[in-house]
């Protein structure tokens, strides 16, 4: 007669020799099950804290960027209170996106239909594809935009570089940059995270009077009003920063938006 008492079944299982095929399968199954529960449990329980960390970091970098722009505290005080507005824009049209809000942006970007694959010739930043929507931050004084903060992404020597680029109201002068994510060589390319280097971006001009984009990270010290000091020993990272900024202020990046702001349509 079959004994179905779980305790005695367990004892029988324990007593089974290890090379028994059923026991081998069962041990494998049991170990996998317990490990899967452990991993899932840890991931699910810790996810809210991790999401909080990421959001806090993003916020901290944004605040650091804003406070690093000279005269910004006066501007905020002038317009009073919470002057920084968050806008989701449609990159191709250069207008505020009608259907997407900051809350629904993440869901929209998980859909591949909302991404544009870049042709090799256009893809100077080396990112492959680009979202059609982006969340930007605008500071207004009166009706005109006095500062725009644009998230940008490029591909560096060690991996993706993400940054926030701050442009002044004329949309031709950089107000600052904050690198939010990078995996460049520590001590060399990773110096793009250093505030001393990032301060070099403030006041640099993007385009010259003929409208050509002139901004570059120089080789060696900066010589013109379009250049930022290069980083010694990190030529590829420096070039990646140049390409990233040029791509995103160009026609495939925020070009349409920049044109719209300059026309005063924002």
């Amino acid at each position, binding site marked *: 007669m079959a004994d179905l008492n779980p305790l005695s079944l367990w004892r029988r299982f324990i007593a089974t020799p290890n090379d028994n095929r059923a026991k081998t399968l069962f041990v494998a199954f049991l170990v996998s099950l317990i*490990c899967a529960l*452990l*991993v899932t449990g840890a991931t699910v329980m810790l996810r809210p804290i991790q999401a909080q960390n990421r959001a806090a970091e993003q916020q901290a970098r944004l605040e650091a960027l804003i406070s690093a722009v000279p005269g910004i505290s006066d501007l905020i005080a002038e317009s009073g209170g919470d002057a920084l507005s968050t806008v989701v824009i449609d990159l191709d049209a250069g207008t505020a996106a009608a259907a997407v809000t900051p809350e629904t942006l993440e869901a929209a970007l998980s859909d591949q239909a909302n991404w544009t694959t870049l042709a090799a010739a256009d893809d100077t930043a080396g990112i492959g594809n680009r979202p059609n929507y982006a969340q930007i931050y605008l500071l207004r004084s009166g009706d005109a935009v006095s500062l725009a903060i644009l998230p940008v992404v490029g591909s560096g020597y060690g991996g993706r570089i993400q940054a926030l680029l701050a442009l002044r109201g004329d949309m031709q002068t950089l107000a600052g940059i904050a690198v939010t994510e990078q995996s460049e060589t520590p*001590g*060399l390319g990773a110096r793009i995270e250093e505030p001393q280097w990032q301060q070099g971006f403030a006041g640099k001009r993007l385009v010259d009077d003929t409208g050509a984009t002139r901004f570059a990270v120089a080789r060696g010290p900066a010589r013109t009003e379009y250049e930022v000091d290069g980083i010694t020993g990190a030529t590829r990272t420096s070039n990646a920063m140049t390409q990233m900024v040029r791509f995103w202020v160009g026609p495939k990046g925020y070009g349409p938006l920049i044109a719209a702001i300059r026309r005063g349509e924002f």
Partner: protein
Amino acid sequence: MAASESLWSTLTAPLIRQNPVMLQILGICSALAVTTSLDTALTMSASLTVVVVMAAGVISLIRRHIPNSIRLIVQIIIIASMVIVTDQFLKAYFFELSQRLSVFVSLIATNCIVLGRTESYARNHRPLPSMVDALGSGLGYGLVLTLIGACRELFGSGKLLGHQVLPLAEQGGWFTPLSLMLMAPSAFFLLGGLVWAVRSIWPEQADAPDFPPHDLREER
């Protein structure tokens, strides 16, 4: 008495005499990658120690019921799960450090030290000695990482744990950082120097030469 003494020697043997990094030259790829500063080296050492101790304990507990034919798979699954849990924990509570360690915490799963200890020791011993042995190996790994991390951070950027120790020439001091120290090869140099020093002090650690030097006088 004898038992506690042997536990003590199990714990201390891997620190210098049987150090997994210096004597067995195991786990050096992560030792190169995370030692650019002391705090990442310490976090990595702590993570590896936690993983290897827990994995050794669990594997030792079920050692009589791991079928021989799938024992490596079972061990790897247990180790990998511990690693993921540790990684998630770091991401939740030590966010900044975990970003700088990036992928290397997850790569503990492939660290030879962990599988080496579970396969050669925990599989044949009771949980307590297994965990003590794993703790010793983890600490031995940590010791080497700490030494190399301290050297690289001190000479590469003049700091220790983020505090400026040597005044930089850029800021009016006298110390010019050696950027070589922040690149991977310097970890090889330091590790080589360390192994050399240790084997000169304890010559019994040196391997026998594969080919004895040829004696030229015989040919004449």
